[in-house]
């Protein structure tokens, strides 16, 4: 049915309003990042900068003096490149580790039931309901005792325990929805269980793996509380923490802050764009 002209106008406005609502802050961030501090802090607000400038960006990538931009803040602009690298490395390491565990566990829970497997599955899922912040004190003690404070390994281990249950649950549902016959055909065709999994089930799971990877990557990349507590030096601090540390007690350089934000959006945006199709499939339950 074609909507009436009035209906169409209402719809266009509604969509425009939603888009503006979502993209508005990003837009403000973008214009601010190309401003000078004077433009950014002017009253009344200047939506379009009087003096467009890329100084904030060049400060972030190492041109010019980082200190000139940030005074009296926990991190200065020169910490930014390292933090992006830290975020990238930990995200990839954690995602690979979580995939390795949860693909096998999800497959196992859905295809290889054993005595008590239901109970175990629900216990694993149950950990999803524990808010992470209730555990941070204990987590900090544990990491300190293990000597894993301020290490990538420590962060990866925490992310694994926090995010694997979600991934296991997603892979469990994914495997349950896949037709079991190709695997059975492979078993009859001469495969051991492991060979059938590797040669037939794993390729079947391709789109599910893409979707869960994206979900996990975005989630790890956006972590704040955990690295704030466990990653205390520039060698491990991720971009989320460093950006927050650009906010000073007495002054904040808004162009620098927003330029860093714009930079930080790029990697997750690329992941989301590339794997968008799979993510939608996973969330709507059809995994073709």
């Amino acid at each position, binding site marked *: 049915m074609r909507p009436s002209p009035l209906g169409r106008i209402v719809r266009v406005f509604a969509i425009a309003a939603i888009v503006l609502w979502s993209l508005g802050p990003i837009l403000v961030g973008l214009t601010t990042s190309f401003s000078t501090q004077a433009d950014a802090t002017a009253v009344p607000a200047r939506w379009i900068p009087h003096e467009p400038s890329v100084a904030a960006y060049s400060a972030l990538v190492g041109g010019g003096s980082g200190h000139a931009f940030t005074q009296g803040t926990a991190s200065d602009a020169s910490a930014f490149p390292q933090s992006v690298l830290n975020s990238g490395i930990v995200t990839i390491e954690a995602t690979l580790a979580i995939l390795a565990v949860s693909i096998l566990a999800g497959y196992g829970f859905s295809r290889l039931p054993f005595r008590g497997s239901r109970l175990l599955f629900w216990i694993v899922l149950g950990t999803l309901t524990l808010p992470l912040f209730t555990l941070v004190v204990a987590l900090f003690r544990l990491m300190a005792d293990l000597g894993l404070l301020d290490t990538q390994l420590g962060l990866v281990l925490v992310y694994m325990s926090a995010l694997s249950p979600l991934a296991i649950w997603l892979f469990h549902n994914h495997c349950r929805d896949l*037709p079991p*016959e*190709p695997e*059975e*055909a*492979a*078993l*009859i*065709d*001469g*495969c*051991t269980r492991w*060979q059938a999994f590797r*040669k*037939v089930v794993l*390729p*079947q799971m*391709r789109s599910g793996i893409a979707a869960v990877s994206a979900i996990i990557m975005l989630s790890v990349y956006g972590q704040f509380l955990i690295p704030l507590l466990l990653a205390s030096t520039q060698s491990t601090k991720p971009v989320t923490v460093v950006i927050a540390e650009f906010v000073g007690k007495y002054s904040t350089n808004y162009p620098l802050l927003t330029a860093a934000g714009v930079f930080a959006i790029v990697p997750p945006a690329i992941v989301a764009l590339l794997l968008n199709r799979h993510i939608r499939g996973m969330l709507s339950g059809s995994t073709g």
Partner: protein
Amino acid sequence: MSGIVLDSITKEFPGGVVAVRDLSLEVAPGEFVVLVGPSGCGKTTSLRMVAGLEEVSSGEIRIGGRVVTSLPPRKRDVAMVFQNYALYAHMTVRANMAFGLRMAKLPKPEQRRRVEHAARMMGITELLDRKPKQLSGGQRQRVAMGRAIVREPAAFLMDEPLSNLDAKLRVEMRSEISSLQRRIGTPTLYVTHDQTEAMTMGDRLAIMRDGDLVQLGTPEEVYEYPADVFVASFIGSPAMNLIEGLFERLDDGFRVSFGGSYLQVPNATLARCPALAGYAGRRLIVGVRPEDLELTDHISVGNGDALEVTVARAESLGSEQIVYFHPQARDGALDGGAELTIGIEDSPTPSRVLLRARLGGRHVLAENGRVRLGVDLDRLYFFHPESGEAVAR
């Protein structure tokens, strides 16, 4: 070298559901045996136990003379064709067909030779480099068959391989699979719920119901001598008419009566089956196949070879028609015993059982018209009223 032997196989699922009970069955070398029955009768479970995809609760399975009961599927030397084809979606047709050979570590040239030979047999040579997604249902079916053939296994297992195909293709593939199997001579266990498929393809039929093997025999045997009312109504299309009636002794023989009308029981039937005489004065179930009924116009009241009926509706198939009748006698409806329910899925509405007849396509029958149906008395079936077991034919 023997074929497939199932020796007292039982499958009990956790929770106590018995899917297959004490099933014994032998598929001789070169033989094509069809496991047939309504859904949930245990036929697929039986096949999966032979394949090793399902554990056996008790009993023994032998394939090619080897006991395989506790071997994993890969060590059983069988090939299976699935209902949804179960092709490996990420591999080409060639890789799909060669997969089993690769797992068996056959030399590359031998793999290539066998795949190409099988592809020629199935007429899919030009599809070898395509992916399953690019194939039609019929082509996928051929690839699945080809994948089974290349293995040159000790047995073929097929689980409703034709049910995802359209009607025309199904008929084509039916005869193709049969003739292929005859040429290769590999013992085959084939599962279907379609009695036409079973009758046309099987050397022998194993008819199952609720986990039990009800009857095992050639298509002719199960059609001519069904073991009970279940087999009688399951085999044959349209299904056999089953009417409860009173078996009576007369001075000059026997007859079976339904309210106002009756049918004479030929002496030849009693000679074949003397036990029938013991039912004198008792009720039993009479079976008449729709193809053993015909329109008659000779008005010989009291001959006991015809029934008076009213036309309910007719389904024309062109060359023939399936006609449904309300059974009725001169003084009203046929005895209430006609309301029989036989426990098969596609039985007609149990509340009011209609007689079915398969008649020539040219008769013009008016709805509600009264006609006389001649009955081939030599082809009456008699079943025990409670157990449903065959008494005589």
